[in-house]
């Protein structure tokens, strides 16, 4: 009862409400700028929290996290530029909806789906933190590696009519992830004397190049060069009706479940949850053929999932002190700065901070909805300007965002190269999604693959001895084989 009072107290506290709105606004702004990731937006605000009381500071930072997770979907839908990994899966149907003049509808789905998802995640966070955190303990290194492989296999197998190309794209993504210093031996791999490559290629550069720059190159080839985008007629936000939300209940429930599981899994994060939700929503959809062509389900599933993760990712952070992502690592740092030690004792010693944070997050989700309604219509108007102005603005936004990651002009050259690669792959009808997922999951897969082999004395049989790993790998194989047979049957002429 006392815990519930802490939650209520936070929800009516003016300082908490202000922190939630301010954090959310900053997060939406930072999250929507390519290159300014969620963790960077949070880190930029960290110095301002030193003088705040711990509850307000935590709410401020967690609200940035909530706002940024949503903000990433704005450029993903409007300019095919996902500002974060967790918004990458939104690009496909969100941008298609924009091209069809349904920007307001896509942003409305993303906003409301995200808000509901955030609230669902929050309920789980508040009620079951300590119990459900035990699930994460089931994942051994072989299971983690298998989970990553399953993720890529799922995405590749549903690449419409192009499973082989999807797997190839996934492997190319994994190859890109191997560039840089090997974290175990310290050996530089595939860097060819370039010091700028020692830390590897940032995932944001890969996404900017593959998605955004390749799209700009595609757009440059279109004949309607001087015209405004097709979506000019849609300039206002359209919130989904209750009937629409009920019709879209299946992808939302899928996203809730996957968002919950991924949030609990350290290293999982919003990217995997949104990719998996997108694919599962497609698998369970009555209209799978609409995916990739402006499907509402294809927008609401990933957007709901990444907002569920924004809440549930706090569970391992608060319960075990294990941050699942860079963003929760910043939050963990802020806890420590304020003298709060994460772990089970945090709930006993500082309930006002923990439950105050839950209350603040509730306000933050509400703030996201309000700010979204106010800000999105002007943003849609801005994006519907004629191509000559719009394309220049997008190009500078991409380049400025890329530069701000490492303050390096080398990165700009790199992103141009990746953009050219993306253009070639798109021209040859290779799906880009598995490639991005491969690059995102590469470090996690490699670390756990090597750890597993070390545990098994170099014998790969360990992946089959672990029941969870064996199940996940069998699922991956099953999906790939069935998809390959289906694809070959439809195209081969005997």
């Amino acid at each position, binding site marked *: 009862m006392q815990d519930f009072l802490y939650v209520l107290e936070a929800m009516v506290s003016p300082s908490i409400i202000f922190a939630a709105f301010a954090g959310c606004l900053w997060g939406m702004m930072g999250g929507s700028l390519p290159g300014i990731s969620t963790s960077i937006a949070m880190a930029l605000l960290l110095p301002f929290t030193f003088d705040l009381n711990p509850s307000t500071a935590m709410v401020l930072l967690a609200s940035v996290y909530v706002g940024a997770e949503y903000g990433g979907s704005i450029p993903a839908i409007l300019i095919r530029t996902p500002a974060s990994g967790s918004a990458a899966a939104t690009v496909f149907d969100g941008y298609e909806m924009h091209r069809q003049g349904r920007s307001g509808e896509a942003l409305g789905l993303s906003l409301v789906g995200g808000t509901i998802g955030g609230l669902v995640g929050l309920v789980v966070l508040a009620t079951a933190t300590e119990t459900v955190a035990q699930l994460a303990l089931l994942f051994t290194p072989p299971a983690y590696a298998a989970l990553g492989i399953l993720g890529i296999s799922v995405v590749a197998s549903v690449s419409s009519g192009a499973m082989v190309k999807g797997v190839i794209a996934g492997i190319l993504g994994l190859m890109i992830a191997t560039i840089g210093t090997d974290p175990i031996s310290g050996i530089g791999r595939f860097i060819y004397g370039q010091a700028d490559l020692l830390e590897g290629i940032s995932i944001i550069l890969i996404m900017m190049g593959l998605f955004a720059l390749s799209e700009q190159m595609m757009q440059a080839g279109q004949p309607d060069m001087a015209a405004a985008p097709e979506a000019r007629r849609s300039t206002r936000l359209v919130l989904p009706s209750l009937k629409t939300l009920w019709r879209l209940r299946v992808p939302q429930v899928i996203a809730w479940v996957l968002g919950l599981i991924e949030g609990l899994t350290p290293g999982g994060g919003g990217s995997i949850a949104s990719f998996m939700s997108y694919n599962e929503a497609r698998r369970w959809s009555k209209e799978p053929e609409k995916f990739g062509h402006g499907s509402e389900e294809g927008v609401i599933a990933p957007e709901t999932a990444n907002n569920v993760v924004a809440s549930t990712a706090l569970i391992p952070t608060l319960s075990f002190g294990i941050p699942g992502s860079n963003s929760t690592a910043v939050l963990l740092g802020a806890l420590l700065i304020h003298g709060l030690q994460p772990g089970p004792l945090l709930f006993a010693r500082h309930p006002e901070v923990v439950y105050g944070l839950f209350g603040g997050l509730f306000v933050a989700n509400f703030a996201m909805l309000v700010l979204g309604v106010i800000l999105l219509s002007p943003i849609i108007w801005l994006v519907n300007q004629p191509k000559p102005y719009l394309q220049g603005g997008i190009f500078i936004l991409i380049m*400025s965002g890329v530069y701000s990651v490492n303050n390096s*002009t080398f990165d700009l050259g790199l992103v141009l190269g990746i953009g050219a690669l993306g253009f070639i792959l798109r021209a040859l009808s290779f799906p880009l999604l598995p490639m991005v997922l491969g690059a995102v999951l590469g470090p996690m897969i490699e670390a756990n693959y*090597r750890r597993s082999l070390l545990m098994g004395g170099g014998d790969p049989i360990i992946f089959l001895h672990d029941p969870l790993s064996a199940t996940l790998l069998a699922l991956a194989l099953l999906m790939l084989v069935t998809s390959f047979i289906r694809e070959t049957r439809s195209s081969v002429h005997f």
Partner: protein
Amino acid sequence: MRSRLAIIGVEGWAGLVLLCLAIVYWLQADALPRSALGGSIGADGLPKLLGVALGFMSCLLILQSILASPRIRQQKRDDLPSRTEILRAVGFWCIGAGFVLVLPWAGYPVAVAAALTTIGMYYGRRPSLRLLAFAIAGAVIFYLLFQKLLGVPMPQGIWPDLFGR
């Protein structure tokens, strides 16, 4: 050349290029130095596995392309962008490359204004006061957003040295 393309198909050629990439990547991985810190698997463990996997999948792609019906092969050729589309895309890419080359010495605001003007003209706008105003306004807004508000140290170019003297 055209008949060869017809036999193996666009995807078959893509598969051949990928197969070459897989071989080169595997050889490069094999050439990685060994370290006692790397454990029994080593830094080359996963890359070699990926090289083999890419090689295998490339062969599948080639096989698929060879076995594909002539109708599907023709359809895939038709799906390729036209020469004009490719040339315009390359042109846009060159503007991007120009921006990257100019940025370090021209500085962020000037390079941004120049890029906005060039892209506007590339998309068919004639040089005009309106385009110039758009470029200057864009440069100021982006400068204020990234340099001042977010504190990203954007390249200053030669201007501080010039005015410093």
